[in-house]
């Protein structure tokens, strides 16, 4: 198997799905001529032409709104929002339209489409190129939210999202694009939406994490293993639907749960994971269900020192693990 970067996994998934199914089209700002500001869509325009690779006006609501229309008339659009921080003007189209189409029509209409967007920080993106937006959308039944962060998971789950009959918000952590490498099979594969993955088995403590924080948590777990604490790290990979079974199974085994996420702490998606554990694994708990997240300020400042202070890091995650292991 070849070792690839996350960004290559995204690109390969798009290429393969566009080749497999000519209903798949890509639309967004700079996705054509420029190949995307991160170069994710590099080569698509040359291969599939202007009809299927659309450089859209700089207008997020219509990027999603036009995609909704396309999905209602036989296409499978993959719409790109250049930075998740810019998604808010498309919120009405995602929440009121795409997510509610099937329910509001009693199953008569549906929106098979994907909205891809790079999110998250640690790239000196400041307040408006760093945000984590998953909680804004997680309270929206009808929408699926997929957020994998290894090349293998990203490729398999993006392909699954494109083939899914319902709208999917596909979150790509931009810091992982060129940071995280991993093996990706040459042959065709698709991963199921809604299945978590145990990235590191352990018996003393469960960490549930996704995005960049998943990788920091894995590093912290290695550190703790040298101190005699065996940490299990669970990657939900899909936030909606959430694989509660795998998460609860792990917590029932270890009796301790730490949820690590990059978004603001209050009402972040990690709070939902923590509540689920507290409610459904109460009898097994041997310590407080703990959240480690970013502080409740609008987003990470541009200043490098403040950015580093904002984000949970390996040291802070290790510390939280030690504290919880002590119960």
């Amino acid at each position: 198997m070849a070792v690839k970067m996350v960004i290559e996994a995204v690109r390969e998934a798009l290429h393969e799905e566009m080749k497999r199914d000519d209903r798949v089209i890509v639309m967004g700002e700079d996705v054509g001529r420029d190949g995307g500001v991160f170069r994710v869509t590099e080569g698509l325009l040359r291969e599939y032409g202007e009809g299927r690779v659309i450089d859209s006006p700089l207008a997020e609501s219509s990027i999603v709104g036009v995609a909704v229309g396309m999905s209602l008339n036989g296409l499978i659009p993959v719409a790109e929002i250049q930075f998740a921080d810019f998604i808010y003007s498309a919120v009405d189209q995602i929440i009121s339209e795409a997510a509610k189409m099937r329910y509001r029509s009693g199953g008569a209409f549906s929106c098979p489409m994907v909205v891809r967007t790079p999110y998250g920080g640690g790239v000196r993106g400041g307040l408006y190129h760093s945000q984590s937006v998953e909680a804004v959308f997680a309270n929206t039944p009808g929408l699926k939210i997929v957020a994998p962060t290894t090349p293998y998971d990203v490729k398999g789950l993006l392909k699954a999202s494109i083939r899914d009959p319902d709208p999917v918000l596909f979150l790509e952590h931009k810091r992982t694009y060129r940071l995280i490498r991993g093996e990706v099979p040459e042959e065709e594969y698709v991963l199921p939406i809604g299945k978590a993955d145990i990235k590191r088995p352990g018996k003393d403590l469960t960490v549930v994490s996704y995005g960049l924080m998943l990788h920091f948590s894995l590093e912290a777990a290695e550190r703790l293993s040298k101190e005699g604490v065996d940490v299990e790290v669970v990657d939900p990979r899909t936030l909606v639907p959430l694989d509660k079974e795998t998460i609860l199974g792990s917590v029932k085994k270890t009796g301790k749960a730490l949820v690590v996420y990059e978004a603001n702490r209050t009402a972040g998606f990690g709070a939902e994971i923590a509540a689920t554990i507290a409610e459904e694994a109460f009898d097994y708990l041997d310590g407080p269900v703990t959240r480690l997240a970013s502080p409740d300020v609008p987003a990470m400042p541009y200043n490098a020192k403040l950015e580093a202070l904002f984000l949970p890091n390996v040291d802070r995650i290790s510390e939280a693990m030690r504290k919880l292991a002590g119960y």
Partner: protein
Amino acid sequence: MAAKTAQTKVGVSMPLGLKPEALLDWYYKMVLIRTLDERAWALNRMGKVGFVASCRGHEGAQVGSASVMRPGVDFILPYYRDMGVAITIGLTPKEHMLSLLAKVEDVNSRGRQMPGHWGDQSLRIISGSSPVATQVPHAAGIAYASKLRGEDAVTIVYFGDGATSRGDTHEGMNFAGIHKLPVIFLCEFNGLAISVPQEKQMAVQNVAVRAQGYGFPGVTVDGTDVLAVYEATKEAWDRARRGEGPTFIECKVQRMLPHSSDDDDRRYRSPEEMEEMRKRDPLERFRGYLREAGILDEAMESEIRARAKREVDEANDYAERAPDPAPEDLLTHLYAE
């Protein structure tokens, strides 16, 4: 810029190449739509129907434009005031009544949406929501898909003047202009966004002038004249099919009733204004035309009214007896099953 108004003099040949039967069919539809609307209000006052957003005063614009479209071929994106569009395309009075009473057989939404939120897959009437203008970019996307596959379907999207203030109207029209899409933007301009008058919504007299900014033609027509609306829509439809791109049609109409059954328009409209407005009833106007042209007589008139009443009575009886959704229906059709 007003489109040519059709001939209304006795003794001239039929306008726009239409046969008298076609005009009588339109008239029947307009009477049926009016009868349905009156029934909806009656049921609302009886406490049986929770909400009515009336099309009264808009029927000329709705029947005239929708009559151009091919049901099941062209795509229709109505907004909540468009009962006349839905009925003209083929939604039956029974289906409308089922939706008013929120019954499980309601084809639009299985009783999930408030009345006026149309949607019928077989008629290509696309499901809509309540926030205004969200359907405008959908129309562009639908038309893009038709064009990409080389199909000749035309898409028509309806909205009120209130919706022209929203960004989605701008973004959707801009996208359609860029790609020269086969789409018709039809604004039913009644000059009120609930209570907010035209002069507080925009600084232009005719909103159709905005089309110029998107690179396609905009026309303003008298929306109380069903023939004028038909003619303007037919022209736009032909343009779309010839691959010449979108058209914006602004139909000046009167909203003859409050915004909805929960609104009291006496708070913001004077009795004189309301009196003036009632003189521009599209149904009366078309009836006058048909009588003058010798197409409609007294006997036909009463037959048409009786037929409409019968159809509405039957639909009403059926819908009132129809079952509500079962409790388990609350959780179905969220994702593909």
